[in-house]
């Protein structure tokens, strides 16, 4: 079970003066249960890539295989693919539209053809999964706080029972606690429901803390694809493409330069703390 991206290219407005190559020779294999981060500056191709993964955009050339099947085959059921690969867009709360939270979350499953009862069950299950408080199930989604709205929007995607969950900047605009809650929740979903998670983020600190594998996009291509530690070791190259390493990585490098013999690989506060203590104490 996996997603294989093979020699993928995508060109916006081909053959016109506005032609832009948004994706360039992308090759990836995303295995079941992975927690992957995608980083890249604005316009690097992150969003275009993830929209290919559930068939929203069709590649100009190259292929995508979901669980061994070519999604561009004639007769391939793209509708089902879109429920299997759930995509949570940026600011998903802007897409809430129903009068109650429950109606909003069960809209997707109903659209899949489930009856009222099953759809409601799915909605309850996914609202519980995102730790949304039961007493607000029948409130209007528009009267919730930003963090709660976002949970409802994510629950709406989870109610489709996806096998892969892709989140495009799920924490933008949230306060530190809201940010931690959403990321903890996603991390839990992955371990308890065995969902593959792909997290697109501008927060280097967040990806360093949560993901096992980090893909760096630049100019429509994959620049790095490795563990966060290995990727952030290239902090100088990352700066040239609009990115950075987490602050603590810079601390470790500066310490090493100042003559304190620390290993510089730390990307989280916990790792940095352990390394500094092991050298200084």
């Amino acid at each position, binding site marked *: 079970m996996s997603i294989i991206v093979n020699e993928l290219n995508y060109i916006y407005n081909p053959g016109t003066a506005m032609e832009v190559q948004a994706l360039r020779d992308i090759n990836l294999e995303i295995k079941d249960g992975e927690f992957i981060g995608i980083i890249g500056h604005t316009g690097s191709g992150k969003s275009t890539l993830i929209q290919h993964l559930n068939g929203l955009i069709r590649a100009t050339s190259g292929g995508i295989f979901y669980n061994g099947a070519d999604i561009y085959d004639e007769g391939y059921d793209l509708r089902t693919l879109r429920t299997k690969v759930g995509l949570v867009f940026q600011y998903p709360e802007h897409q809430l539209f129903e009068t109650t939270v429950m109606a909003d979350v069960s809209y997707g499953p109903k659209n899949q053809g489930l009856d009222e009862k099953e759809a409601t069950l799915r909605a309850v299950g996914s609202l519980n999964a995102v730790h949304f408080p039961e007493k607000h199930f029948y409130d209007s989604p528009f009267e919730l*706080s930003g*963090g709660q709205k976002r949970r409802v929007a994510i629950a709406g995607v989870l109610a489709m029972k996806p096998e892969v969950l892709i989140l495009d900047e799920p924490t933008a605009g949230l*306060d530190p606690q809201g940010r931690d809650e959403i990321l903890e929740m996603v991390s839990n979903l992955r371990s308890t429901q065995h969902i593959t998670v792909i997290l697109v983020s501008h927060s280097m600190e967040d990806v360093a803390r949560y993901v096992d594998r980090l893909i760096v996009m630049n100019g429509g291509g994959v620049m790095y694809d490795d563990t966060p530690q290995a990727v952030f070791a290239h902090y100088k190259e990352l700066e040239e493409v609009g990115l950075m390493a987490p602050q603590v990585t810079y601390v470790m490098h500066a310490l090493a330069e*100042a*003559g304190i013999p620390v290993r510089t690989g730390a990307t989280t506060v916990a790792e940095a*703390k352990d390394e500094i203590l092991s050298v200084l104490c």
Partner: protein
Amino acid sequence: MDQFIKARNVTFEYIRRDDDGNVEGIETALDKVDLDVKAGDFIAILGANGSGKSTLAKHINALLTPESGYLIVDGKDTHNKDHTLAIRQTAGMVFQNPDNQIIASIVEEDVGFGPENIGVPTDEIWTRVEKSLRSVGMYHYRHHSPNRLSGGQKQRVAIAGVMAMKPKCIILDEPTAMLDPIGRQEVLSAVRELNKKNGITVILITHYMEETIHANRIFVMESGKVIMQGKPREIFSRVEELKDHHLAVPQVTELAWELKQSGLSLPDGILTKEELISELCRLS
């Protein structure tokens, strides 16, 4: 320095009504807020979502006015409707999403839109456009289409658009929430320059703690009240208190605090990488 903003007991409630106009619920967004900002200050406002930060910001340029208490901006009471336009020109706002703030198809036209709207003579408009774009380091892009700019560049164009109105103060409501790391740095350094070189009073609302370490003063809000205020070093020395209020500290501060908890003798409130390095070198 002159007092630029003076707020006393500012209270504001959002009232929810049903279809018949009956009151369904009242939410107190600002609860007796006092705020003093001097001309040329750089202040930061922190607080969880829903703590009242944006509501307060909207009071400073008279988009909202206090239900009780008062707020004076540059000597003008925001209650007085005759002052509303003058206050909005004095205190310009920049919001989260640059795409919602840019309206023209060429950068320089976008920046000139504001002054043109208030009848500034053409020559003067072009002078202002040039000056504003230079002040945020975007003059080179004046003939570009905003569509082709990065997030950080777009946001700097939005700031230039506000600068072209010759404000004394800019209020930035999470201006970097949608930007990549370098874009965040670009916007922050543009804002710091405006503050230092042009003496513009800056009010920055953000969830990124690192962005606030250069502020003169930080205000922390919760449930419509100002619950902490002080210099960055004072505020970020109170790590546990901030955590109790669901806030964080800059990553360097957190690392220093964790190391201190583990027994290293470090001072409180370390804000920058350089401070932490020199303290650790002293210990080694």
